[in-house]
């Protein structure tokens, strides 16, 4: 079930990070426009899939606008956007979902820390992204093959 409190909290965190970035000297007009779009997407009544896409699209604009002024404010905004998406799709309803989000935030912060320290961001980005995507594809593929073999009913 959707929790309006969690939704409000996620939007507030996104807003707070936006104001923090303006305080740091960012372009307030771009941040303000991005923030308005993010608010609209957060409370729009549309089909679930569409809402998810709206939140992500407007959220990423906000993250980039905020991150231009303050990188770590952008990281926090990103976590709030993903939190809002997961809450919208009712993924935070149980403790497993909340643990999943917490783990995601930890890994995101770790990744952000690495990006912040790196001198050559492009190579690092390609490497880390390839590792993450490859790990997911291999894990999902292997498990799918195992399940199909296990339940195919073909006698070996």
């Amino acid at each position, binding site marked *: 079930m959707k929790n309006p409190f969690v939704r409000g909290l996620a939007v507030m965190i996104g807003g707070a990070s936006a104001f923090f970035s303006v305080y740091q000297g960012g372009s307030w007009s771009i941040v303000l426009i991005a923030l308005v779009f993010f608010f609209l997407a957060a409370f729009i009544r549309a089909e679930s899939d569409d809402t*998810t896409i709206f939140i992500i699209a407007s959220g990423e604009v906000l993250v980039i606008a905020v991150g231009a002024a303050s990188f770590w404010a952008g990281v926090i905004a990103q976590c709030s956007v993903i939190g809002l998406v997961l809450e919208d799709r009712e993924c935070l309803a149980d403790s497993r979902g909340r643990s999943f989000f917490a783990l995601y935030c930890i890994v995101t912060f770790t*990744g952000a820390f690495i990006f912040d320290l790196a001198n050559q961001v492009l190579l690092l*980005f390609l490497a880390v992204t390839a590792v993450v995507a490859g790990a997911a594809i291999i894990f999902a593929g292997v498990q799918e093959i195992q399940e199909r073999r296990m339940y195919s009913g073909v006698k070996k």
Partner: protein
Amino acid sequence: MGPERSTQGIWVITTFLGAAAILAGDPTFFFATFSLVLLSAALAMRFRFRMHRIVTSARVTRSSDRKVLQQGGITTVTTGFSCSPDPGMIIRVRDLLPPASLSDPANPSAVVAADGSATLRYSFTPLIAGSSCFPGIALTISDAFFSGSLVMGSDPFRGPELDVHPHAAYERFHIRKDYGTQEKDAHSIFHGYGIRSIREYIAGDDLRSIDWKMTAKHDKMIIREYTAVENLPPLIVLDLPDRSFLVPEEHMAKLINEVAGETVTAIRNCGSVSLFLISGINVIDIILEETDVQRCITAIRTSAHPRFRLNHAYRWKDRASMRGSIRKSGDGVSFQKKDESGPFLTKIAQIYRRSLASPYVPAFSTQVNRLLSSLKLEEIVLYSLFEGDLSHIGEISHQAQARRIRLRSKTVAVQDGEKIFLIKKTLRKVTMEIIP
């Protein structure tokens, strides 16, 4: 496993961000792209974990009303499914059917309830003989971001095995009057053990049928003609009453139910059935050698109700009885009124002769003739309420007797003595059953 629409949207945004990151070289763009890739990967792995949990907890119980059934027969199958569901996951279970079989509904499937259970109940019809085993289930699992499917055909999800006995093992229709010449029809591999006849061998006969003792005794090749089951589906005639007669609804309902039952039985036993729906001499519908029960039932349900008879047979000239009357009496005519004078009888005889001389053949008579010619029949089952004019029934009865086709008639509750007399007169030697 495949992405849902929202995930596809995330991937499109990620691609744009990645391109922008490479062009701009800004760490924020790189981070945003990375975090979305990480989100997709994390959601995919989460989905696989949850799907694995559901799949490993899945249990199936399947039962059939009958373990042994006839080819083309119907049994009801009940499949129970249970698992440990995860919140937010939509699980759809579909029962897989053995090859060459039918089910109603065509793809038995159900969405698993919140408690993780689902029950599928459907009718199952095997089309080929032999053992027929249910091969398992197909699970389709989806959450907000991904969906996946899995066919579960291992032992716990298979079965039960049904024993399907052959049904249509029938010999093709024989034209027995042509004995002594080689029959055109190919020999059936199915034959009984009874001997229909013994005859001289003709080139092309099956050598396995040679009767060696008779051959030795008569010094010429003698073969045995074995008996076999012949599959001749009946013709069911439903005579619908005229709308101008008041017919009790329960009588009509009984009649239709009985016709539907007879149709189903005929298809089950003979493989097909022919339906002839009439209202007096008005032909409503003709269905020839139909094998689909549903189509027959639909035709009966839609057509079988009292009809306005557009054409009537009150002035039908019964040529057979006219000819019979003239033949019996010679020059005069045997008429019920014995005390009538000769001129009257002579006049009637003249009228009869004139009627017989004109080439008058009613359309209904031609239709019945064509229908009976086009079908190989042993039996006609006639359902009627015997209300109003019965000339058309007399015509069917007459043509059936001429072709040596057995005619059974069934009706609902006839109490009037005069009516019974009239029906018996119309149907001549036909047996009549009263539907209780």
